[in-house]
């Protein structure tokens, strides 16, 4: 499309756990050959979806710099994030923020909520006066629909789950970030509060140009707010494309199975036929080469075992599926 430098680019990211010389044989490939880009403009919500063990949190940790990749690179505005130093590194830390899954565990219960903000302001050395700092905090709280006097002087246990998570979004927002890595931000929040947090994400994207990497196992919320989606299966991309295309017309057999298994919140629409072929869970992860989904795949072929299928273009806009069914 455009030749402008993307905000974030991931090239062939691979992460292998284990396999050191004392533990030979127990290698786990958590992420394999993963590539994606997030454009500088417009801001988008990119969903990384997958089951547990699909590598989605590994990806988030790599982007945030918590772990080093075994192979591949992550570029932020054209610079490899492992080579960032000094001011660039600080900028990266400021512009790429994180919101985590459990709003109960990210707080230190002994400090008032205000402490979180004070700490951030002190660490990033933004040079605010006390009243400026307060104004900045108030403003970010307003973005998520909270008021300073409501939350700042309270202790974490006095806030509801939804409030806690919004406080964390406000904290991320206060840094004026370009990208927020949201790792399952709503899965620990009740249904009635979930919408509020998702709405804050949409507002940040549309009004303030903040992009999101929305990491989730919940395809329903991804469908409601996501722009692009990558569905991972055991570390590699099964299918990617526009969220609407992938969820309404999935091509990869795994993604089809996944979408069919989401329970429909309507007793009038019953689950389809009984799933076959998944009963033998022992076959999971036994495939050394070839397609990882082979043991569970209803349309497996002999060639699937020979080599890992590349991404083939399928009919949606920039939609691709890693399956030999679409080999032309």
């Amino acid at each position, binding site marked *: 499309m455009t030749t402008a430098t993307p905000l974030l680019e991931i090239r062939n990211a691979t992460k292998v756990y284990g396999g050191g010389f004392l533990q030979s044989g127990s290698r786990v490939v958590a992420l394999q050959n993963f590539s994606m880009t997030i454009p500088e403009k417009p801001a988008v919500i990119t969903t990384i979806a997958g089951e547990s063990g699909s590598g989605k949190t590994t990806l988030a940790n790599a982007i945030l710099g918590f772990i080093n990749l075994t192979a591949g690179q992550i570029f932020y505005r054209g610079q490899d994030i492992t080579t960032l130093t000094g001011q660039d590194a600080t900028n990266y830390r400021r512009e790429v923020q994180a919101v985590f899954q459990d709003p109960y565990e990210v707080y230190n219960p002994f400090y008032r909520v205000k402490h979180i903000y004070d700490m951030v302001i002190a660490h990033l050395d933004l040079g605010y006066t006390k009243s400026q700092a307060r104004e900045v905090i108030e403003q970010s709280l307003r973005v998520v629909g909270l008021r300073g006097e409501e939350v700042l002087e309270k202790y974490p246990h006095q806030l*509801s789950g939804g409030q806690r998570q919004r406080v964390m979004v406000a904290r991320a927002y206060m840094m004026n970030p370009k990208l927020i890595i949201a790792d399952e931000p709503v899965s620990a929040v009740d249904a009635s509060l979930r919408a509020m947090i998702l709405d804050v994400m949409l507002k940040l994207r549309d009004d303030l140009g903040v992009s999101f990497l929305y990491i989730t196992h919940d395809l329903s919320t991804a469908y409601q707010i996501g722009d692009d989606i990558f569905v991972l299966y055991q570390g590699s991309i099964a299918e990617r494309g526009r969220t609407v295309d992938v969820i309404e017309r999935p091509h990869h057999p795994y993604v089809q199975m996944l979408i069919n*298994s*989401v329970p429909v919140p309507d007793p*009038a*629409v019953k*689950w389809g036929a009984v799933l076959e072929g998944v009963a033998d869970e022992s076959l999971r992860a036994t495939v050394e080469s070839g397609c990882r989904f082979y043991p569970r795949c209803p349309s497996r072929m002999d060639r699937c075992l020979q080599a890992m299928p590349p991404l083939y273009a399928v009919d949606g806009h920039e939609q691709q599926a890693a399956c030999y069914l679409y080999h032309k």
Partner: protein
Amino acid sequence: MIAQPASNFVRASQANREVVLDVRNLRIHYETPKGDVIAVNGISFQVYKGEIVGLVGESGCGKTTAAMGILQLVPSPGRILAGEILINGLDMLGLTGEELRERRWRELSLIPQGAMNSLNPVMRVRDQIGDAIITHEGQQPKDKLKARILELFALVGLPPRVYDLYPHELSGGMKQRACIAMAIALSPPVIIADEPTSALDVVVQRVVAQTLLDVKERLGVSMIMIGHDMGLQAQMVDRIIVMYAGNIVEVTPVFPAFHNPLHPYTQLLISSIPSIRERKPLKITTGLTHDLRNPPPGCSFQLRCPHVMDICKKTQPAMIEREPEHRVACYLYGKEEAKG
């Protein structure tokens, strides 16, 4: 598409009227230095033979406490202050410790939330299931016990080789099925399932859900299924009990729960479910639940209710039956004598 499942629902709700579990006026408080947290505020409900009842509500509404209360496993500082729990007419709360030990698991069993953490890691699966059987029925011949355990495995779709395995050798779905096998080992009339599939991936969740439905169908047991995944509730349960802040606000068959919810909280709950079938604007709600230590007089949902009236702030609305089997506690549907 709509008409056919509607008839299913009528069949499911009218098939069996025999009450297996009768909970009356159950009240559970958590004692804290600043006063009691009223976790379960005198709730009453019944479970019929062979049905699955969903117990839903947001976290902190008391659904898990209520279920643990039925099992008499409320963790300290929680205490059952009042109520009756009748299983086939026998009051479980009136039993002595020894009598309760004998009957628990035989009358009432539990499928716990995180199967990963509820099996003993140093005991083979067969020994854990065998343990439950031997404790209640005494020592029995080894081959007879083995046949029985293998039969249980077959019932929940576990391959026979699991007989020799340790929990860490099983996948998450298999562990959850092992827990189901353990729960049905003594054929109790009532099983409580606390979010039985919440730790599992969607595809595995579906397989385990099918196993549960299958087991219910074959053994004719009744289940209480606690959960917040409304999709799963829609697919699995026959009736739904909606709790809010320690009170039951609505009891309804599953079809009207989704298509004609009466209580404003149920309406909110249903309308805020994200759907994978239809992209729709997000529904935002405001307001907070009151402090559970000091409930305001009147309806527990008054602070968040879009239809709140004066009377809602004075007395708690009583349960009224709007439709057959569909009861709601809300003044929007008429005023009856407030309870208690």
